């Protein structure tokens, strides 16, 4: 039962990552990220239930509250204020992107078999999905031009790292996890402020235009 829930959630996270690659409306992309984070929260909660570890409940609650709700809400507010709603044509079109992501998933799963936990049960899928998401996040980062999409790509990478943490370990030490969550929130705030300044200055958040500094 536990294993099924874990695998279902992990699969859901991978699907959201693929949908983010195929999506151009920024609001939808942000909602997908929120969904992905909530699924991560459910993974943590499931582990808390099955292992009887109380501090994992707090991790789960934090993940859903901060990454599932607060960060998406903040990013939507940023978009609303600057009034830009769609991703422009990425450097690579959607079908080609999806194909590449498929290849990245294969790579992710292949690497996951090297872990001692990686050859059996739910952990295998958690690690495989996490590594695939990591690669997809990196791919999104290099092929997209909008500042907000790049932030979302970074946050996807972050989610992947946390999924590894849940999949390979029984959760990081609690205080450390708390500090990391706090830092991630702070980083998103700083990124948001920076995006607003960039839009205020360049009247666009197309970061491929930021190319004056060379040499």
């Amino acid at each position, binding site marked *: 039962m536990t294993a099924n829930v874990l695998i279902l959630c992990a699969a859901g996270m991978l699907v959201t990552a693929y949908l983010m690659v195929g999506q151009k409306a920024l609001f939808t992309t942000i909602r997908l990220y929120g969904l992905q984070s909530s699924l991560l929260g459910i993974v943590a909660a499931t582990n808390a239930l099955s292992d009887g570890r109380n501090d994992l409940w707090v991790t789960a609650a934090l993940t859903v509250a901060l990454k599932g709700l607060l960060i998406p809400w903040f990013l939507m507010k940023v978009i609303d204020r600057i009034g830009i709603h769609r991703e422009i044509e990425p450097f690579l079109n959607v079908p080609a992107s999806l194909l590449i992501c498929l290849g990245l998933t294969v790579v992710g799963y292949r*690497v996951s078999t*090297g*872990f*001692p936990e990686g050859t059996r049960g739910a952990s295998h899928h958690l690690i495989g999905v996490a590594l695939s998401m*990591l690669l997809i996040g*990196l791919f999104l*980062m290099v092929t997209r031009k909008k*500042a907000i999409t*790049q932030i979302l790509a*970074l946050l996807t*990478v*972050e989610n*992947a*790292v946390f999924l*590894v*943490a849940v999949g*390979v*370990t*029984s959760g*990081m*030490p*609690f*205080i*450390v*996890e708390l*500090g*990391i969550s*706090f*830092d991630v929130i*702070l*980083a998103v705030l*700083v*990124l948001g402020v*920076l995006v607003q*300044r*960039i839009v205020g*200055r*360049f009247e666009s958040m197309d*970061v491929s235009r*930021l*190319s*004056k*500094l060379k*040499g």
Partner: protein
Amino acid sequence: MNLLVWTLVAPLVTAAIGVVAGPRRFREAIMIGGLAVTFALCLAVAREFLGGAIPAAFGDALRVDGLSALVLVLCGFVGLLSGVYGVGYLRRNEARGLITPRMRREFFGLMPAYVFAILFVSVSNNLGILWIAVELTTLASVFLVTFHDRDTSLEAAWKFLMLGSLGLAFALLGTVLLFASGQGHLGEGMAALHWTRLMQAAPTLHPFTLRLGVVFALIGYGTKAGLAPMHTWKPDAYGEAPSPAGVLMAVGMLNGALYCVLRIHMISSASLGPAFSSGLLLTLGLLSVLVATPFILIQWNLKRLLAYSSIEHVGIMAIGFGLGAKAGVFGALLHMTYHTLAKPVSFFSAGSLAQRYSSSDFETIGGGTFAGAPITSAIFVLSAVMITGSPPFGLFFSEMVILKAGFLGAHRAVTAVFLAALIVLFCGFAYQVGRLVLGPSRHPAAGTMEPERIDLGVGTALVAAVLAIVSAFYLPGPLMALIRAATDVVWGGA
């Protein structure tokens, strides 16, 4: 509370007071005073360490061994120096009407906050806390990069933050994997991520997970240190940040990031044998030196020139650590020390020149600065001689130690390439400096500029220059003891 905690509280309090509005003199006094107290506390902690104790706090989450003590003292020193210079820098810009209240608040708040974060990095014994501290350094410095609020500074800050955050995501993954590799051997709670605990458990760590973790962590923290090929944010960020913040990045943050790299390197060496992470360090280091070389030859901007020099130096240190010889480690730590003493001189003099000519672009400055600003130019030439590793200054000795360790060891070919790159770098730097200071000035306002006088900024550069020169001939005994202690820590772990 013990001394170590106070060392971290002092800059934090300084930052908090700096954010609150107050008369200018008061803020200046608070910043210089606060950073001076911080440096004094760093020295006191190091003294405690040299007295035979291991200063620690919060259940060993913060712990000062030889390596920590050395980095702590070096970063505290740079913090104070850049604080004093920063006040002078701001005064000059203030006199030209370039400073808004927002900038003042950001400057007096973020500079000490940045110093706090760097010192926090250098005493972290817990890999999780270490990661949090490095992230704090990134966040504290972003708005220092955008300080001048130009188009280009926003661009630089964006690249800096995106690349830095990506590096940190990698470092976090590395940390998670290191933790995972010791499942069942590390125990529960916070202490499970202590570096000391991981070192004890080194023989039992799972090799595959550890290997993957080490690669991710080294790349992640290597990004923060600016090792090639993850160095691309560096010229942009150094070029756009105001010089006092540039020094904190180029020396303080560099030392801090190398500290993280070394901690990971030691775990890897203890568990997987020295060859694995040493090879990585050697490759990244040599690549950094090689990448920096052509960009120094064709450089068009004074501050970016210093950034590439910083990439070169971090590469030299990585090579020293990667040679797999005790002499190499000693040379690299000596290099870190002399670099910390010499680099601020370049940044301070270059910053003062850039302020005087309102640009750090070679074309706009138009050469001939020696005629227009003899004191600053002389200091800059002197600093260029020092940071290119010319005798009789400190960096020459440390480079010789590393080269000797390299030629006596197993990596002769790498060392030969490294030596060749150093020679080309020296010529490139000499050419650039000549272009800047010699000849008649082509700057449009050259004739009408007021004569140079020694203000707080130039004065700090002078003092820093004197310290750097003296250090070449006389390194204080306790500092040398710290370098040796740090060598023992790094080599003992390897």
